[in-house]
């Protein structure tokens, strides 16, 4: 595809997991760093426990709000099966970060469909640069179960050139004031894993 200077980050998960907030923070960081930015996602019906994906693109000039097929530089997946669903959108040399969480949809309890229990094995075979972390567990360790999102952003930040302080500034503005310290700690924790 034409514009090699555009960085493509695909953030995926299940409705209600916080995909949209994560992509919002990444977009803000990219804008603050002086980029043209576009971000696209679909609201509405899909948010009721369905598949959610958010495209974030940044660079000197971004045209389409959608990442071309197979052109994601980074995929951040909030859930294992969703990581597998979207993996083919990753460039062969791209980075994937997977939150080690399993959300089984009701449809997988019938006879027709099964949850892919071997998702992580399949991803390991496919993807050269794969990082798996259990953000839920790390969040519990930090004493607050709601930090998974920020921990994953910490991991995501390592794949980009932006200064860590730029991320911290944006996180400070986007999270509830009382939780700023905890979220910054979570962000650093995500960077250290």
């Amino acid at each position: 595809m034409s514009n090699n200077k555009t960085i493509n980050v695909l953030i995926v998960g299940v409705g209600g997991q916080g995909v949209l907030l994560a992509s919002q923070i990444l977009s803000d960081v990219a804008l603050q760093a002086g980029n043209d930015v576009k971000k696209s996602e679909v609201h509405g019906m899909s948010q009721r426990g369905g598949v959610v994906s958010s495209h974030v693109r940044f660079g000197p000039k971004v045209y389409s709000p959608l990442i071309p097929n197979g052109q994601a530089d980074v995929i951040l997946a909030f859930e294992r099966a969703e990581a597998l669903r979207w993996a083919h959108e990753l460039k062969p040399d791209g980075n994937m970060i997977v939150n080690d969480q399993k959300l089984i949809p009701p449809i997988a309890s019938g006879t027709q469909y099964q949850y892919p229990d071997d998702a992580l094995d399949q991803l390991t075979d496919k993807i050269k640069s794969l990082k798996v972390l259990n953000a839920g567990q790390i969040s519990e360790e930090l004493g607050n179960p709601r930090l998974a999102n920020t921990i994953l952003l910490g991991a995501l930040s390592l794949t980009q050139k932006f200064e860590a302080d730029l991320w911290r500034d944006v996180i400070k503005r986007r999270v509830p004031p009382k939780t700023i310290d905890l979220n910054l700690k979570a962000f650093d924790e995500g960077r250290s894993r």
Partner: protein
Amino acid sequence: MTLQEMRVEEIILLSGNEAIAQGARAAGVHFAAAYPGTPSTEILENIARLPGIKSQWSPNEKVAFEVAMGASFAGARSICCMKHVGVNVAADPLMTMAYTGVKGGFMLVSADDPEMHSSQNEQDNRMYSKFAKIPMLEPADSQECYDWVEEAMLISERFDTPVLMRMTTRISHSMGTVKIREWKDIPVTGFEVDIAKYVMMPNFAKPRHQIVLKRLEALRQFSEETPLNRIEWGDKKVGVVTSGVSYQHAKEALPGASFLKLGFSYPMPLKKIAEFAGQVEQLVVVEELEPFIEEGLKVAGIQCEGKKYFPIYGELNPTLTEQGCADAGLLTPVVEEMLEAASVMPRPPVLCPGCSHRSVFYALRRMGTHVTGDIGCYTLAALPPLEAMHTCVCMGASIGVSNGIAQVNGSKRPLFAVIGDSTFLHSGITGLLDAVYNKSNVNIIILDNRITAMTGGQVHPATGRTLSGVETDQVNFIALVKALGVRHIVEFDPYDHNGVRKVLKDAAEYEGVSVLVTTRPCMLFPKKLTGEPYAIVAEECNGCGVCLKIGCPAISNSGKYTAKELAIPAIDQSLCTGCDLCSIICPVNCIYAKAELDQKEEVTS
């Protein structure tokens, strides 16, 4: 970003919908009305946060349009926002407001949904501009959304016409950079009597139609001159005519080509396009859905290709656009290595854990009913495992369709129409009136959770609050349906599952129209409801799988099996809200509330 943080000349990220809202305030728009519908909903939600614009949810798009039209007749700059199918509802006033024209600038925002991410069809509302003979703007990014509200107001006032601002999902829900301008404040000029302009009876409408035709000629001329239609010269081998988000995809596929980008896309600047066509070797039209531009050019004798290479359905994206361009011989596709796609189970959207609708649909399914359905979260009950909705066409149709089936004795099963509170107020009341008047033997369930839930929790006339948070009167459904002539009316608690079954059975046995109204709020709005979670005692479970048939996202197979190798389900404690439907329907009573479990353990230990 809050208002205080926004400064003139600053560059911020806004979605197309946010940009329309901000652009409306900057352009001195006084009034906005809408009915929620994806992907348009956030426009009005964002306007409601801005000082200086009055905004309101109306019961449906037709009313929203009429109210905004009234504001325009009173000399206020007004806008009206809706999803593509909403324009069908508002089409009646739209087609004739094209004749009356405006006083204060008037813009209709139609947010179309190519690909049907959250819609029942993917109609291309650019057709409405031609149908109504009104000008159309098609922004291609958030900055254009922001800037062009004022353009729309100026065009509307200069040419005395409503203006159609046509958005699509990828414009409405994509964020891009926007440079903020200063806010304008424009006075409301007030209503003035002008019978020949505002009273559209035949003797006045006939001369108005002539005015519309003259206006269209003036707009054609404007279209030739306006910088909203711009040429970007590049390589003259390929010329691309395009509009909206398709422009962005095409720029990415053919960065070196020449472009004629239509921002003012009806009436089209045919002279400008013909001149452009004359200077390029090959002309292609890149557009989503219908060949709106392509047909316009072909009728004008301008040679071009479009739908030969690009799909007429679904959403365009950079990859499809590149493929189409390759098929047209405009580029050589680069074959890039791609990872193989894995096959992963689908993850359709589902009713929330604890949703009060679930019990009703499970009871309908067990009764062996025919269910005509409607538009809302509850449409999800059509999916497995519930599969308890058998028709869904448009807002309000559940009742009309039931009436039709009943009128021809077309069902041997008990027949139920299921409709939400917001949808009933939108277009269900007239269907019910039809049922009573024509003596249909139908049963209507109003799933009243006091909110428009699917679109994200918007208030409506039965909520008791307005968009701006002011307390207001609440529709009383019981009194309303009684006044329409319904005699069998029952209010019921949807969480009392055995009670639900009795209410449904009684209604099915009643000869005539019955209306059943639920009494519980949405799980998510106005606040998220939680409760003591339930748990399955694996040792007591016989693996029958009945609890999996209610489609609750909190229940899934645990990986454990009974002695007969049947899967034992488990309840996710973090998702369960304690609605207890699974516990009520469990044939072996092995699902317990946490308190019950603790007590049990105490006894056994």
